[in-house]
Structure formats: structure tokens, C-alpha cells
């Protein structure tokens, strides 16, 4: 227990002022760093909430201004996605404001705290509202204007907001640049692709619009409309109900969706357009942006396209992608709005999944760029041959059970959409056509095409065509969960009579690796779409040629490579620092005091005024001075805790003295001084590697000295150890005495000129002690010297030529043993009558008489013969039991030990 607590005390740093201050300082620095890291950064913008007038509605808006602006700044109108509010685009708005734009965000009519009803980006409503906001921007004194009432403004927005940007730019020529993201070209085509109603997405959004009825929309208190329609305008609501019921939009619905489609205004868009579209988007796939890009480019307006790995299904995408999108957006605005920076070129950038992100276990992508936008048919094509016969597949009633391709609105993990996992087909309801394993990998980027023939007893069929990437283990992946729905009419009942129909699959970005196969699956149902309610069995045959568009690009340099330079920099600094340190050390080493104190040059050991105070203020030794000459065996005698071990520790360079000097053969001794190589030591007991034998231990020790093998004088040392055959046993099995002897032998390896032994006889038995005495005396005869410490008087007396007596860290006596051990002038007398004896003795003229105990007297004789004292006492009739002559060393030592050796502490 005590050993444990002692260990703990040693392991835990003691708290004292010297340690507390640096520790507190370090803690303070750490805390400050932590606070700095999490501190709220001062905003680089100011904002105000406003209620602005739309076309007959009141719009909830917020206007951001950069905090440090010089004069007027261009403005950016940021529009939110369907179901969002001005708060959904808050972070985009803030970062744009930080870039020095005046930013206006607002909640579109029918959402959040804005009044009015949802008209699906109708040119007569939402787009007009936005035009009025431009009017308002023109009135702001902070905003740059191109002409009176014409603000310098860009419109940025995703999805619902992206379509608004396109429609507004088509309708209002004051718009100077637009960045529509993940948005549609033709809403009818998006919601009813291939004539099949995209029920999941449509329902998801319809629910979203209706939900705002209960979520604060009603709080404004004007539209307490139809519960079936929520905040949707009546015509929009009707259109949805009609379309969702039949699955086929009627004329009115088609017209309404057409109204809300940028497709109608593309030729009027004059604002440079940056189109950003996601590759993991089953709502508005890449083809929508492609149509927009073509339409706008046809009007001669600058247009640039970028794809990223994300979208309505995939979200923002990996960090590299969102960084790229942000960079492109800022570059676009900077040039076309601020008039700064070079013209953003035609370069088309896209990204492809590269693997797992090490940090969050999601996907990471690599960016690629090509000189120009290639559209969705790639810059090249690769044909893959499919095999498989015509197969019958069943259409389940009401599309149930239905195959799964994606999970609209759930926002599943990107990785599950791109590495398989979600998609599932129902047996009996699908047929497969598969290629042979690919001989080389194919970089697919665009919309693959395939031809198929179908037959149906009803003359009609709704089919879902999908492309699977199948790895050698059979795991199939429906890239991004994209399917091509197709509704065929006028089909024959027999497949042999059917005409081939070319199906354009959704555009994907994927590398299909060598060894993988490509599978075309034709299914009859999909949970994301509305399929015919009546059961039927179709027969489908897929033609053998699948055309895959390919695209070659140059990888975009990873901005992360800068970190490697940083690493090289860090390493460089460290190496440089190391070199500087070594140089400084070398200089210091050269400058160190190597002078030999001539007067001590032939003296093995001179200790002068040694003092050691520990960190906690405890003074272990002070004013210790003594000398060890050649030929001497000096005993350092003192009770436990007198400071013997501390002195020896300093002597071996283990502990730094607080004051005082030590010279070994005239060389000043500091920690690790080479002169220590001429000193052999046993300090604080033996220290051996327990798993080695005694012999191996001595060998390992000598190896560590790096000195020539012959100098070790192994045989002599082993003889002194006297371990016999035990020298080849592991030291952990040694007794205390054996270890002690081995340690003495180790100290004697190489026959050092000064031998320092701490309690050498500890653990030895009497014959061994006697032997050790002889060994030490003999050792010192050859011009060498020995310093032994001991708390045993007899040992020092018998072994040493000289003695230094220490107590409580100070020297109390020193000199040749014979001098200090010699007779002391005092004797101890045991007498029968103490008072009488005292009287008699005082008459005899002794120096002093002290009573000790009941019957003892300590008498300083002052030259009086002992025989005379005894005679006088006996004559006086006092019985003398005992007379013991005392010795000086004993006097000194015992009085010390008797006094108090307790409480002097571990020195």
C-alpha cells in the first residue's frame, strides 16, 4: 500500500509554485485557443427584415448589406426552393453578402409568412412579384443601378427558385445574370416523363404546399381555403388533382404546367446563365438543364453548365462539389455583375464518385473538366451488346407490389443511391438483358439509349427501363436511382410484330469498370410512378445494342494538394529547428568549462560546499565538503536520511546540485560529464534487467559503455561477485545479496579509479561482508580510491581508512578513522549508587559527569586514569558493575542517532 502511494506520488507531479505557474499558463493558452476556435465571428454584413409588396400580396423579405462597402454594390436576389422560406437560403445569402453583394431574400407567395397562394412560378404571379422586388432594389440607395429603375442584379436559386430565375430573366430584361440550380425546363416533362405520372415527387410537393396551410400560413389569416388544396391556387390544385387521378394531364393541366416552364421563355433570356444541375436527381434530371442550356444558347446568350454529384435525391453533394458550385457561382457573379475577373470560359465541369470519404464514410467525388459542354449525349459513344430473349412480364394491379428505384423526398444517403442498396425489382414483373463482362472500363456521362419492342394484349404498356451496373460479385447498382418510364400505345399482341422504340435512359455519370456487366432491366411497376391499374402481361424484347455516351475530361487539380506543401513546410521547419538546436548545442559544448583544476588533478574526488534543495524547498544536503585521496577507502557515515544518497546521486550526475562543486581528478563534474567514465558506482541498490542473466547483464552494461571489450576485466569482476554458476541465471531469480554482489561487480567493471558504493554490504551475510571488506581495502591499494556510504558504524570502522559523518545534511565529523574512532576521553559507568558516585567523581576532578538512566553515568575523564576512578569508587563503597570506554566516532554518531534521526526525511 505504501509502496503504491509512494509510486503514485512519484508518478504524479507534485504541485508547487514552480509547476503550477507554467501549467496554469499552458491551460490558459489552450482555453484561449478553444474560445478563439468557437468564437462567433463578427458578421461581415447587416440585415433587416422587411415586408415588401408583391403583385397583390405581401412578401416576407430580408435585405442584407455588406458591412464594409464602398459606395453602391450590385444586388443578388436569392430565391428559395419549393416549401422553403427566406430562412432556407440564409447561409447562401450571408456568404454572398460577405462577398460584397446586396442580397435580397424573400419568401415566395403562398409560403411561410408571405401572403397569397402558390401559383407554381406563374409569370402572372410569382414572376411579377419578383419584378416588383427588382423595382424595390432599384430604389435602394445602396444598390448599383444600370439606369433609373434598373438595378444591377442577379437571380440565384435552386429548384423552384431556379425556375423563377429563368422565368424572371425571360420576362424582365433588367436581370443581369442568373444562376439557376437543379431546376426544370418543362414542368410537364418533369412530372409526367414519357407519359407516366411521377406520383411520389408530385405528391411530396403537393403535400409540402398544403402543409403550409397549418404551419403559419393560416396565421396571416386570409386564405382559409379548401382543405384539399391548402395554399395552392385553385387552378394549380385542380391541375394536380386531375393529373394525380388519371395519370394523364388534360389540356388545361398541360397548359398550366407549360406556363410555369422556362422552356417557353428561353429565347427571351439575355442574362448570362450559369446552369447547375445534379446527377443524383430523379425529379429534375440532367436532361432538364440540357434543354435549358440549348434554348438559351440558341438565343446567343452566354450559358455555362456544371454538373455535380447531388440533386433532389443526393442533396448538396460532397464538399468538393459544393465548393466547386460555390466557386463557379461567385466567378459568374463577379464577372457579370461586378464586372471583375475574366470571362468565365465555356469549360464544362462535372464530378464522378471516387470512393469513400475517409472522414465521414460518405462518398467523395473527383471533379473533371472539358473544354465545352457536350450535352447529354457525350463526346463519344461505346456500344455494348446485350443478350436475352423476348420475355413476358406481368403488370401488377394498381402498381402494387412495385419495384423501388429511388426514395423521393427521403433524401437518402448518396452512397446508397450510387452503390446499390435501394433499388429492388419484383420477380415476374421485370426482365433482364445483360452484357458480357466489359473488357475495359467505360466512363459513362450522358443518356444511354437502347431500343426495345413490346407487345401488350391491351395495346398499351407502361414500362420502366433501367440500367444496372453489375459487379463481378453480382451486386447491381441502379446509378442514382434513375429510371426511364415509357408509356407505349398501339402495341400489337405479338412481340414479333412490334416496332422497335428507342428509349433514352436518364443521363448518368458513372464509370462502369472492367469486369462488370451492364444489365438493362425492363419492369412494369415503380413505386415512384403511377402505373396502370389493370393487370396485364406484356412481352418485351430489348435489341442487342446499348449505346453508352462517354466523356473524357481532365481531372480538376485537387485544391487539397496545398496541404502536402504545408506538410513539407512543417517538416522543413522542424528539420531546420533541429539543425539550429544541434548547432547551438555544439557551440555550448565547445564553450563548456573543460579546464582541469590543477591542484585536484590527482585527487580522485573533491566535494566543495555541496548543497541540494529540492523543488518543494526541502534541503537535503548543505555545506558538504570532503576529499577522497588515492589509496583511501572513505566511509560516508550517517543515519538513514542523513543525505548520503543525495550526495552520491549528485556525484553520479543523476541529480543537479543547487550549489557547490565536485571535482573528479580535477575535472568539474556535471551531469553526464565524460569523467564519470572513470568512476564505478553502486547507487541506491542494484539495477538490472530482470530478464537477463547476471552475466548478460554485465555484458549489456559494458556494451552500453561503448568501451573496448578487453578493458572490462570481466573475470576479475565475476570473481568478486562470486556467484559461481548462478551468474547464468536470470537476475529476477536472484536473492537480494546476489544482486548486491553482482552490482558491486558491475561497479568494478573496467576497474575504475574511483569506486562509489552505496551501502555495499546491504543484504550480504557476515562471511561475505568480511570478504567485501578485504576486496575494498585491496581495491584501494593500487592508487585507486573507494567511497562507501553506510549507516553502520562498525562497517565504516572496519573497512575505511577515512570517514565522513553526516547528519541532517551536514558534516558533523570527518578525518582518518583512527583519529575519530580512537579512544574518547569519556567512559560509561554503571554504578550501584549514582548520587554518591557523582560526588566521588567530582572530587576526583573529572571534566564532567552526566547521569544517564537509573544507574549509568557518562564521565569525561579529563586525563584521569580509568583504574583510578574505579579504585576511588570502590574505596567509597560504591559498587561498579561496568565500565565501558567510549570512542569518539561512536560519541558523535550515537548522539546523532539518539537525538533524532526520525523526521529528517528521505534524503
Amino acid at each position, binding site marked *: 500500500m505504501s509502496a503504491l502511494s509512494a509510486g503514485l506520488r*512519484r508518478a504524479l507531479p507534485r504541485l508547487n509554485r514552480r509547476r503550477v505557474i507554467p501549467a496554469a499558463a499552458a491551460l490558459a493558452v489552450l482555453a484561449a485557443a*478553444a474560445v478563439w*476556435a468557437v468564437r462567433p465571428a463578427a458578421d461581415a454584413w447587416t440585415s433587416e427584415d422587411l415586408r415588401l409588396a408583391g403583385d397583390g400580396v405581401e412578401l416576407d423579405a430580408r435585405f442584407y448589406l455588406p458591412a464594409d462597402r464602398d459606395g453602391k454594390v450590385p444586388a443578388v436576389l436569392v430565391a428559395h426552393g419549393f416549401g422553403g422560406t427566406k430562412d432556407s437560403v440564409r447561409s447562401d445569402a450571408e456568404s454572398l453578402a460577405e462577398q460584397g453583394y446586396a442580397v435580397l431574400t424573400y419568401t415566395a407567395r403562398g409560403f411561410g409568412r408571405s401572403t397569397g397562394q402558390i401559383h407554381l412560378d406563374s409569370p402572372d404571379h410569382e414572376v411579377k412579384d419578383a419584378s416588383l422586388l427588382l423595382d424595390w432594389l432599384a430604389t435602394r440607395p445602396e444598390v448599383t443601378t444600370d439606369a433609373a429603375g434598373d438595378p444591377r442584379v442577379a437571380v440565384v436559386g435552386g429548384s423552384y427558385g431556379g425556375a423563377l430565375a429563368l422565368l424572371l430573366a425571360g420576362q424582365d430584361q433588367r436581370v443581369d445574370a442568373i444562376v439557376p440550380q437543379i431546376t426544370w425546363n418543362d414542368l410537364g416533362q418533369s412530372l409526367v416523363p414519357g407519359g407516366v405520372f411521377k406520383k411520389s415527387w408530385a405528391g411530396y410537393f403537393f403535400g409540402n404546399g398544403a402543409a403550409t396551410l397549418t404551419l403559419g400560413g393560416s396565421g396571416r389569416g386570409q386564405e382559409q381555403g379548401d382543405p384539399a388544396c391548402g395554399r395552392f391556387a385553385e387552378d394549380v390544385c385542380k391541375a394536380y388533382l386531375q393529373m394525380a387521378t388519371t395519370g394523364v394531364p388534360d389540356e388545361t393541366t398541360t397548359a398550366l404546367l407549360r406556363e410555369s416552364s422556362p422552356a417557353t421563355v428561353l429565347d427571351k433570356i439575355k442574362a448570362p446563365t450559369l446552369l447547375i444541375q445534379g446527377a443524383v436527381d430523379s425529379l429534375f434530371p440532367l436532361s432538364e438543364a440540357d434543354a435549358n442550356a440549348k434554348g438559351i444558347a440558341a438565343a446567343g446568350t452566354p450559358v455555362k453548365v456544371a454538373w455535380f454529384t447531388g440533386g433532389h435525391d443526393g442533396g448538396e453533394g460532397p464538399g468538393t462539389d459544393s465548393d466547386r458550385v460555390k466557386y463557379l457561382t461567385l466567378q459568374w457573379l463577379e464577372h457579370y455583375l461586378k464586372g471583375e475577373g475574366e470571362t468565365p470560359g465555356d469549360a464544362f465541369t462535372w464530378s464522378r*464518385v*471516387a*470512393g*469513400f*470519404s*475517409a*472522414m465521414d464514410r460518405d*462518398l*467523395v467525388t*473527383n471533379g473533371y473538366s472539358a473544354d465545352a459542354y457536350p450535352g447529354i449525349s457525350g463526346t463519344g459513344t461505346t456500344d455494348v451488346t446485350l443478350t436475352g430473349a423476348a420475355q413476358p412480364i406481368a403488370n401488377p394491379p394498381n402498381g402494387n407490389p412495385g419495384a423501388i428505384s429511388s426514395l423521393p423526398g427521403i433524401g437518402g444517403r448518396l452512397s*446508397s443511391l450510387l*452503390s*446499390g*442498396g435501394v433499388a429492388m425489382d419484383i420477380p415476374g414483373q421485370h426482365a433482364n438483358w445483360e452484357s458480357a463482362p466489359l473488357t475495359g472500363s467505360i466512363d459513362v456521362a450522358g443518356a444511354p439509349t437502347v431500343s426495345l419492342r413490346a407487345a401488350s394484349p391491351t395495346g398499351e404498356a407502361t414500362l420502366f427501363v433501367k440500367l444496372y451496373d453489375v459487379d463481378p460479385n453480382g*451486386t447491381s447498382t441502379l446509378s442514382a436511382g434513375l429510371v426511364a418510364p415509357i408509356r407505349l400505345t398501339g402495341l400489337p399482341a405479338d412481340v414479333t410484330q412490334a416496332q422497335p422504340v428507342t428509349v433514352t435512359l436518364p443521363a448518368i455519370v458513372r*464509370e462502369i469498370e472492367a469486369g462488370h456487366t451492364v444489365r438493362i432491366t425492363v419492369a412494369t411497376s415503380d413505386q415512384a410512378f403511377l402505373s396502370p391499374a389493370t393487370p396485364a402481361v406484356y412481352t418485351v424484347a430489348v435489341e442487342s445494342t446499348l449505346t453508352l455516351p462517354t466523356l473524357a475530361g481532365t481531372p480538376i487539380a*485537387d485544391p*487539397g*494538394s496545398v*496541404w*502536402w506543401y*504545408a506538410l513539407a513546410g*512543417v*517538416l522543413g521547419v522542424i528539420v531546420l529547428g533541429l539543425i539550429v538546436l544541434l548547432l547551438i548545442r555544439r557551440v555550448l559544448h565547445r564553450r563548456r568549462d573543460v579546464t*582541469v583544476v590543477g591542484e585536484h*588533478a*590527482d585527487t580522485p574526488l573533491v566535494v566543495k560546499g555541496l548543497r541540494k534543495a529540492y523543488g518543494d524547498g526541502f534541503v537535503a544536503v548543505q555545506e558538504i565538503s570532503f576529499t577522497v585521496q588515492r589509496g583511501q577507502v572513505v566511509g560516508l557515515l550517517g543515519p538513514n536520511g542523513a543525505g548520503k544518497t543525495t550526495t552520491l*546521486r549528485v556525484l*553520479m*550526475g*543523476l*541529480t543537479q546540485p543547487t550549489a557547490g562543486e565536485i571535482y573528479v*581528478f*580535477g575535472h568539474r563534474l556535471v551531469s*553526464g560529464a*565524460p*569523467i*564519470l*567514465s*572513470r*568512476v564505478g*558506482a553502486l547507487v541506491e*541498490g542494484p*539495477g*538490472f*534487467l*530482470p*530478464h537477463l542473466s547476471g552475466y*548478460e547483464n554485465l555484458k*549489456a552494461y559494458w*556494451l*552500453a*559503455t*561503448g*568501451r573496448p571489450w578487453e578493458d572490462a576485466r570481466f573475470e576479475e569482476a565475476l570473481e568478486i561477485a562470486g556467484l559461481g554458476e548462478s551468474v547464468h541465471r536470470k537476475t529476477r531469480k536472484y536473492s537480494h545479496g546476489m544482486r548486491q554482489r553482482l552490482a558491486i561487480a558491475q561497479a568494478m567493471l*573496467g576497474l*575504475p579509479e574511483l569506486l562509489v558504493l552505496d551501502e555495499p554490504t546491504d543484504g550480504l551475510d557476515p562471511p561475505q561482508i568480511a570478504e567485501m571488506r578485504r576486496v575494498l581495502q585491496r581495491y584501494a591499494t593500487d592508487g585507486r580510491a573507494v567511497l562507501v556510504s553506510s549507516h553502520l558504524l562498525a562497517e565504516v570502522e572496519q573497512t575505511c581508512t577515512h570517514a565522513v559523518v553526516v547528519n541532517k545534511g551536514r558534516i558533523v565529523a570527518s578525518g582518518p578513522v583512527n583519529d575519530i574512532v580512537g579512544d574518547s576521553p569519556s567512559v560509561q559507568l554503571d554504578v550501584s549508587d549514582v548520587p554518591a558516585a557523582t560526588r566521588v567523581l567530582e572530587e576526583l576532578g573529572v571534566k564532567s559527569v552526566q547521569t544517564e538512566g537509573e544507574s549509568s553515568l557518562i564521565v569525561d575523564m579529563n586525563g584521569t586514569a580509568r583504574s583510578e576512578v574505579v579504585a576511588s569508587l570502590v574505596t567509597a563503597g560504591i559498587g561498579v558493575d561496568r565500565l565501558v570506554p567510549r570512542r569518539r566516532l561512536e560519541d558523535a554518531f550515537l548522539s546523532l542517532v539518539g537525538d533524532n534521526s526520525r523526521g529528517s526525511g528521505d534524503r
Partner: protein
Amino acid sequence: MSTVEAAAGYKASRTLPIWAEVRRQASRRRTQLALGFMALLPVIVLLAFEFGGGRRDDDNDGGGGGAFSSMADLATSGGLNFALFGLAVSASFLLVVVVALFFGDTVASEASWGSLRYLLAVPVPRARLLGVKLIVAAGYSVLALLTLVGTGLLIGTLRYGWSPLGSTIAAEIPAGEGVLRLLGITAYLGTTLLVVAGLAFLLSVLTDAALGAVGGAVLLFIMSSILDQIDALGDIRSALPTHYADAWMGLLSTPVQTEDMAKGAISAVIYATIFWGAAFYRFTRKDVTS
């Protein structure tokens, strides 16, 4: 004769030769056990795969298991994947313990045996003693890492054959390049372990209890890993020594993603420099009392 500065044949730069320290450590049971276990682990994993029975779920449950489960699925596809799997399962704990053992034990155990003071009395200059101990501990750690990878590669190849390095997301990596990737991953893991090495070494200098030094380093490493799981800490986590521990997965992508690895290496190198610097600073000044 008496004015010579040192005993005949003594030269400070010749004390405690590296080879002597290598032998000092090699004779220790824990060194042998640690290295032996590194060689044994792939064998155990192989036996587990062989006799573990039951098919692993192959129903593509998607997101749940993430990269790790897919790595286990791929482990039996070839020697490279097998070696990678062995490395991946050891990275977060076993290797940490082994490295902490080599670095944390080296000075503290000498102190607890009492042999440290005899080395210092030789005298081995303190900076040299630490330097040699550091180099030898690093050597043993590298040896352990290479043993793990080498044995994994060897028995994995013998049992499952030589095939490209597979990864579920990115393209398969041809075997030749796969070896380079595997070496790169090994090197990166070695680099991240510098943090453990630094911390264990510092503790080894501060305490006489070898167990305390090893345990303390492992403990702090685990604590850092736990803190790294707490999203609320935000960007502070990037400063945690374990934050980039998994960045080697970037080498399984095609093309490789090394940004996080560079960050991780910077973090590890800085931490190691601080810890080792502190160890040298402390040890060259402290009173050796054990």
C-alpha cells in the same frame, strides 16, 4: 595520466550503441510477444474467416455498415484485401497499444528496474540515451507494422490468391499498384501513430511506471477518439490527434484522395514534435531519482 578527461576507450558518441539497445529490447518478452502477435493476428483472422461458419450477409444492406463492413466482405477476395483488412482492424487499437508499448516502456522500464541510473552513470549523455531509445522504439514499431502487413499479405495470398485490391465504391486497383497503395496506407498509419509514439515517450520520461506510460498514452488516444465523435465540438475536432485517423481510406479511391492524409500527417508530425521535444527538454534537466 590523471588529466585525461575520460577512461580509456570512452567516447560519449560511442555509448549505448544502437545495436546494444536493439539487443536490450529484443531480449525482452514483451517485445517478442508484441512482434509475435503481429505475425499471429493475420493467422487468427484467417482462421476466423475459414471456420467462422455462416455466410456474411450479402443482401447489400447499404448504408448501415459503411466502408468497414464492405472491407470485411472483400477481405477474402485476395491477399491484398486480406492484408488491408488486418491493418484496418488493428489500426484503431492494437497498433496503438503496440506502439505505445514500444515507446512508453522504453525509458520507464529502465527507471523502474533501476538500470537507468547506471546507464546515466556510464555516462551515456542524456540526449543520446533518449535519441537511441527513440530510434530503436521507432524501429521496432515499424517492424511490427511491416510484420502485420507482410504476414497478412503472405498468408492472404497463399489462401485467397493474388488479385487486384478491391473496394466497393471505386474501381478495383491492379495488384501492382495495389501493393503501392497498401504500402502507402501502412506508411500513413505509421505516421498517425507518431502521436501515440510521442505521447507514450513523453509519459515514459515523466514516470517510472512503464504501465502508466503505456496505459496513459492509450487512454488519451481513446479519449481523443471519443471526443472526435462529438459533432457539437465542431472545428475543434480537427485539432484532435485522432481526427484524421481514417484518412488512409482516401487511398482506396481512384484517383487517390490525399488531402485529409496530408492534414493528418501535419497534425501527427506537429504533435509528435511537441511531445518528443517536451520529453527531451524534461529528461535532459530532470533529477533521476529512481
